[in-house]
Structures are given as structure tokens and as C-alpha cells.
């Protein structure tokens, strides 16, 4: 405990907490958490960005709360406590947004509720915050939120570009005049299965670039 207290705020270990989820420990492609929302909200880039940001905030704060309380939380009801913390935070965020950032709150609409059910939150609380101090937990939350956001942005970029021909609402495909060559938007990209295929492709590319991520064959 004593040597941990002396650890600088941005030690190599803490930095790793922040960066590992971007690649080697990505919540979606490696931990396979939060897939459901990755399918639902990646049709357009903008909602994906807003969702990524809000998940990052909520997972970071709830990680801190649970890490601070970790020695007082009875093990038998820890899942309920985690859920209460997440739900309270999400509702508070929703109420504050409705009062002071109405436009953002309208953008988010159902997403706010969806954050509660995002597996990344419970996953990180259970796997990390219950066993670590608040500061590393905060970094872990930020890292995982960013890792989740990264995949969301990649998937929604391709879905919006190839499915609707726009980027953040800007009609890119129309501006470069590709439609005159007979090109058409692919409707499959708008539908949820395409998100699954794209996430699959990302997992494939990531693992073929970095062999160490490939799980060993089970005999």
C-alpha cells in the first residue's frame, strides 16, 4: 500500500491504463463488451460521437465512486450497488443536461437510458474499480471510454459514408460526383447487421496486425 501511495499520478503503469484500451485491451474488440450499443447507434457519426463522450464521462465517474467505496461495499450486494451508482449518475446527467444543455439532451434522447445498460460500465466496475484505488480507476474509465469511442467512430464513419453517402451530415459522395458514375449508396450499411460485420472486420485486421492478440487454440 505504501509504495502505491508514492506512485506519481502519471506513472508508466497509469499511462498504460489510459492507452491499453485503445488497442491491446479494447473493450469492444478484445473484451467484447458494449457490442449492443455499438450496433444500435453507429448509423451516423454524430450520435456515435455524443454517445462515446457520455459513456466515457459516466464510466470514469462511476469507476471513481466505486473505487472510493470499494472496501465498504458488501460483496453479496456489490452488483446492486454498482447498478445503483450507474443509474443515479446517468439520471443526474440526464436531468442536468435537460436543464442546462437542452440541445445536447435532445441529441442524446434514448442514449442516456442506454448508457445504464452498457456492459462496459458494469464490466469495468467489477473487473477494475472493485480492486483498485480511485485515481487508477478514473484513468481506466477514461481509457475504456476512449477505446469504446474509437471503435464507434470507425464503424459509424464507414456506415455513414457508404450507407448514406455523408460524413457528419455533409454530402461528401455527392460533392465528389461519384453518383454520376452509377455508384449508389449501400442500404445494407444502414441496417444493424452491417455494424456486426464491420466490428468483425476490425477484430480481424487488429489480430492479423498483432499476432499476440490471437487467442491460443484450445485443444
Amino acid at each position, binding site marked *: 500500500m505504501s509504495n502505491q501511495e508514492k506512485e506519481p499520478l502519471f506513472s508508466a503503469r497509469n499511462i498504460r491504463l489510459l492507452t491499453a484500451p485503445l488497442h491491446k485491451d479494447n473493450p469492444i474488440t478484445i473484451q467484447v463488451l458494449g457490442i449492443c450499443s455499438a450496433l444500435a447507434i453507429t448509423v*451516423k457519426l454524430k450520435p456515435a460521437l455524443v454517445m462515446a463522450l457520455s459513456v466515457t464521462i459516466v464510466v470514469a465517474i462511476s469507476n471513481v465512486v466505486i473505487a472510493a467505496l470499494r472496501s465498504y461495499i458488501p460483496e453479496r450486494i456489490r452488483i446492486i450497488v454498482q447498478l445503483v451508482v450507474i443509474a*443515479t449518475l446517468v439520471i443526474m446527467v440526464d436531468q442536468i443536461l*435537460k*436543464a442546462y444543455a*437542452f440541445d445536447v439532451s435532445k441529441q442524446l434522447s*434514448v*442514449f442516456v437510458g442506454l448508457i445504464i445498460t452498457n456492459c462496459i460500465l458494469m464490466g469495468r466496475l467489477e473487473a477494475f474499480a472493485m480492486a483498485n484505488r480511485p485515481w487508477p480507476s478514473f484513468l481506466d474509465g477514461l481509457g475504456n471510454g476512449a477505446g469504446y469511442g474509437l471503435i464507434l467512430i470507425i464503424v459509424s464513419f464507414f456506415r455513414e459514408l457508404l450507407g448514406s453517402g455523408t460524413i457528419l451530415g455533409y454530402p461528401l459522395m455527392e460533392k465528389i460526383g461519384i453518383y454520376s458514375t452509377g455508384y449508389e449508396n449501400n*442500404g445494407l450499411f444502414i441496417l444493424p447487421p452491417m455494424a456486426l460485420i464491420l466490428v468483425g472486420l476490425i477484430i480481424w485486421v487488429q489480430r492479423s496486425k498483432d499476432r499476440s492478440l490471437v487467442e491460443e487454440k484450445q485443444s
Partner: protein
Amino acid sequence: MRQFSNRYIFAFSTVMVVIVAVLLSLAATLLQPAQERNLETEKKKSMLESIRIPANRQNAVELYDRYIKESFVINSSGEILEDVDAFTVVLRNEQRKPAGQQSLPVFTAMTEEGGQLIILPLEGKGLWGPINGYISLRQDMNTIYGVTFDHKGETPGLGAEINTPEFENMFRDKKLFDDQTFVSVKVIKGGAGEDDVHGVDAVSGGTITSKGLEDMLFDCLIKYDDYLRGNRN
């Protein structure tokens, strides 16, 4: 991890629930005035958008006072009902009442060029939740001047596209009446023809929302049938 007694677990849960309850009720009560103000501004902003006046949250109240001239409530026979404030009528509650007893709000507005418009509120069902909007009609009580739609929780990128300008602008200059019969505007899957004055393109991937929107237009506007026909010129 430490073992905790049952007594501790009960005490912990009780304290936790009380803290959470206090926090949430405080947040709800303290933020309520600000939230209600936002909803009111939003309503004014939507109405202004339906008459093609781009408003933001800062100038919506001021612009509303400048452009919206009059508001009143009518019944389904087109008679004006006294002592009901049109702005505070909650359409969803009215829709639960029998057709003859519903209060139907009408707002009148004046454009920069001096043209008179009427604005009618809309409320219906989307795929996941309520959808609503405003429609403004020109003086002939037939031609659509502008519309604005909004929704509570339609799927982003699919049904939620109903509140984009691309979708809303398609309604401009469409007609509600075919000669003397009320036909409303249909949302057509696969795209409406160029010269179709009663049809607009549906949202791809948002069939149920599009259908809900079409029903909303028909159900809300047919109640004004007598009023609109009585005032056509």
C-alpha cells in the same frame, strides 16, 4: 474482500437508497424550473421553424412575440372556445377525450411579406415513442407553407431523420385537399413522384416512423376539416 454481517448489509443498502433518493429528488426539484423554461422555449422555437423562421434558444421568445399574432382554441366543428389558452393545451391529453370535446389549438402568424399563415400542432406515435410537430398553412388553408417534426426517441440515423431539414422541406407546397376532400400528405416508400402534391419520400430504414408520421398528419388535421374548409378562400 471483507465479510460483512447481514445487519451491515441492510444498513448499507438503507443508507445508500436514502442518499440516492435525496440526490435524485433534489436534482429533479431544483432543476425543474429550468427544464420547464427549456420546454417552453423549445415549443416556441418549433412553431417558428414551421413558418420557416430559423430561431435559436436565445431569440426564440422574442421572435415568437414578433411573428405569432394570435392564438385560440376551436372544437371539431370549428367553433372558437373561449377561456382556453392555446399555448398550454396538451395535445396528448386532448387526444384521449371523445372527438367532440377536444380542444384544438390554432395559432396565426404573419410573414415578413405580410402573408397570413396558420399553425397547427401535431402529435402522434413513432416507433419507440411519441412524435410531434407543427404544420403551417398558407391563407388558402390547403397549401403547406412549412413543417417541423420532432421525436422523443426514434432510432438515430433512421426514424430520427424526420426532424432533418431535408425531410421537412419536402412538405413545402404540398396540398392537404384534393378539390373538396381532405386527403392529407402521404409518406411514400421508394419515393414520391415529382408532381405528386400529396406525397413525400419516406425515410429509408424508418418505415414505421414514416407511417406513424403519415397517420399523425391525417389524424390531427382531419379534426380541423370543418374549420379549414370554412375558412378557405
